[in-house]
């Protein structure tokens, strides 16, 4: 990165967060700041049992001993953790009375994505009429899941209704001591999703936060825990292709996955948080810890992510391959445009015998953005016959953006086979002209080329998500060439 770019990013990053949301302070909001008392109050407001409060406090005390990490390839101004309110009532009042008050540019994007009007209202934070289709849909789904013994509920509900499961697995993959943001999350997490698939059950539908009422209000410190018991299968979708705006700048979520014997968890994310304006102003910082443990033999965890949003993304969905013959997969498309910064990748930790992992990472940089892949493949002493294949491709649009690859490989067992391939390419003027000459506009040409480039990842997404992701990609890169 050139010094002028660094300066620019610094300049922009130093500008005040002046995004024009006005939210009424509700009576049910804790004052800004973080201390033990605040955490106790937060826990009390959520009517949590003593063990939960204690867990939070342990995390908080540990957090005080930690320092904000700065090893990643992103720059941002210091975050004042005392200037954040760590609890506000889950139901916020609508920000707007009607769609007419919403930023027309945002509505235009919704339209391009083909989002129904009622959903547009919810996404933009407009008051919605009492009866909304997806609410009833959600209820129907819930009944069906209940019959099969599947638990799919908010994290708060899980703490109340299924404390044994939560106690057993919470922090078992991402301990509260794990890293600065995960530890902060452990202390103050607001809400999130909890999924338990019982032995031998194949979840018959894609589980999506979308179908959970109030999902949009889980707040900035979301916590997700998914457990697939022996021989179980679940596919979980997170996020939404529509751009999500939020008045919270810092998002530090934690996702823990536990796959037991012969089970499989497929976790797909489409992340499109507000990236800030063209100069990166007002965008969201997304510092996420996602990790899955393949505990059982023959278990499998697949992460698929399409990241187009946020001003800064710091995220490494990882797999700990403990069970023999277990499989970890990571498929990622990360797009950065304008002033966005992304430092993302994965960790594959091979511990069991005959474990396999696959990494396919596609980075796309446009504008003045910076896109880094950071990945670790570790093969432990006892991991006989571990195999890994990594492919990291970077695509550059224009000549002011950056792509970086940081692969780390640590092998402690001589039987391991690890392959790493990396390419960097630019969308060529000649490719675009070729498509122009076939009657295709430059914008459509870029979209064709980029979608072709990402095909390997998109084919891992559930069908509907894949279609939306393609559209999303085109919109994210609009105007970045020519």
């Amino acid at each position, binding site marked *: 990165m050139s010094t002028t770019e660094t300066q620019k990013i610094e300049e922009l990053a130093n500008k005040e967060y002046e995004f024009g949301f006005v939210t009424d302070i509700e009576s049910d909001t804790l004052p800004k700041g973080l201390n033990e008392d605040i955490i106790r109050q937060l826990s009390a407001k959520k009517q949590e049992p003593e063990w939960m409060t204690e867990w939070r406090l342990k995390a908080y005390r540990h957090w005080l001993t930690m320092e904000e990490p700065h090893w990643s390839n992103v720059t941002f101004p210091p975050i004042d953790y005392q200037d954040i309110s760590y609890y506000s009532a889950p139901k916020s009042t609508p920000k707007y009375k009607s769609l007419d008050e919403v930023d027309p540019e945002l509505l235009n994007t919704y339209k391009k994505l083909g989002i129904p009007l009622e959903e547009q209202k919810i996404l933009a934070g407009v008051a919605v009429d009492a009866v909304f289709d997806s609410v009833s849909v959600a209820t129907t789904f819930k009944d069906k899941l209940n019959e099969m013994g599947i638990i799919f509920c908010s994290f708060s509900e899980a703490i109340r209704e299924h404390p044994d499961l939560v106690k057993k697995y919470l922090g078992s993959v991402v301990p509260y001591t794990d890293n600065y943001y995960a530890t902060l999350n452990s202390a103050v997490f607001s809400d999130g999703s909890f999924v338990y698939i019982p032995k031998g059950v194949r979840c018959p539908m894609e589980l999506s936060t979308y179908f959970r009422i109030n999902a949009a209000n889980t707040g900035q410190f979301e916590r997700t825990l998914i457990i697939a018991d022996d021989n179980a299968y679940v596919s979980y979708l997170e996020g939404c292709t529509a751009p999500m705006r939020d008045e919270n700048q810092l998002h530090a979520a934690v996702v823990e996955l536990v796959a037991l014997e012969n089970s499989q968890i497929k976790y797909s994310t489409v992340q499109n948080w507000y990236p800030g304006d063209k100069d990166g102003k007002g965008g969201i910082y997304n510092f996420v810890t996602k990790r899955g443990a393949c505990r059982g033999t023959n278990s499998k965890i697949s992460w698929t992510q399409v990241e187009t949003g946020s001003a800064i993304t710091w995220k490494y969905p990882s797999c700990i391959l403990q069970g023999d013959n277990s499989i970890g997969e990571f498929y990622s498309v990360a797009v950065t445009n304008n002033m966005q910064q992304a430092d993302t990748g994965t960790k594959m930790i091979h511990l069991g015998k005959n474990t396999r992992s696959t990494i396919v990472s596609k980075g796309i940089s446009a504008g003045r953005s910076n896109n880094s892949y950071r990945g670790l493949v570790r093969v432990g002493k006892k991991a006989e016959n571990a195999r890994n294949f990594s492919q990291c491709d970077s695509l550059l649009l224009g000549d002011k953006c950056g792509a970086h690859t940081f692969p780390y490989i640590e092998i402690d067992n001589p039987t391991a086979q690890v392959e790493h391939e990396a390419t960097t390419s630019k969308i060529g003027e000649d490719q675009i002209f*070729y498509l122009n000459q076939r*009657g295709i506009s430059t914008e459509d040409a870029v979209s064709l080329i980029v979608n072709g480039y990402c095909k390997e990842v998109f084919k891992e997404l559930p069908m509907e998500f894949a279609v939306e992701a393609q559209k999303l990609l085109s919109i994210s890169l609009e105007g970045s060439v020519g």
Partner: protein
Amino acid sequence: MLLEIKNLHAKVEGNEILKGINLKVDLGEVHAIMGPNGSGKSTLASVLAGKEEYEVTEGEIWFKGKNLLELNPEDRAREGIFLAFQYPVEIPGVSNTNLLKTAVNEIRKYNGEEELDSIDFLKLLKEKSKLVELDQKFLSRSVNEGFSGGEKKRNEIFQMAVLNPKLAVLDETDSGLDIDALKIVANGVNKLKTKDNATIVVTHYQRLLDYIIPDFVHVLYKGKIVKSGGKELALELEEKGYDWIKSDKAEIVA
């Protein structure tokens, strides 16, 4: 008149390559443009297609009564100009089918026609792939990726068959082809020829013109058309070589 080029001058990176081209092409005609290396043949093809690096400094191009120079490359294509590239570009991850479906529908939209549905489109692809003897497995493969030289050229003619242009410009389509591939490509071009379209064949060698019989042959030299004639001109060139033109031209200038 389908195409009329008047006193066309064009520059690349500051060098004037075309120095006053005049050419008229009518429906139902096949024109061959021949000339030694560096005479400006490919430049002329690129200027017609609207490649950005080529700056037109003087002159006019009229296509179907429209000022072609005012149209961007995609609109030129939509109006019916097709360029078979000398070096077809590889586009990883984008299948031939996908490219053609997008192209066909963009062209149809531009011309106020309804988009083709998948069934009709696949029927069209099947029919046209037979016409140019292209194995159907190429349809699902990424555009030109890993294709041999001959396959790339044949793929160009296949795209041309599907897009059904008014004016096809074949830029050195014969280069790098063995005689069998050449026959297949020429055969495809001949089958696509109708009274309602026209073809400009840009070539260095006469041999392609054994298979695609031109109505007119133009010799380009140092950015100008220095000789025009019937198909016999190509044979004469073959016999005497370009030196004949060069010395002839030298005399004219002198």
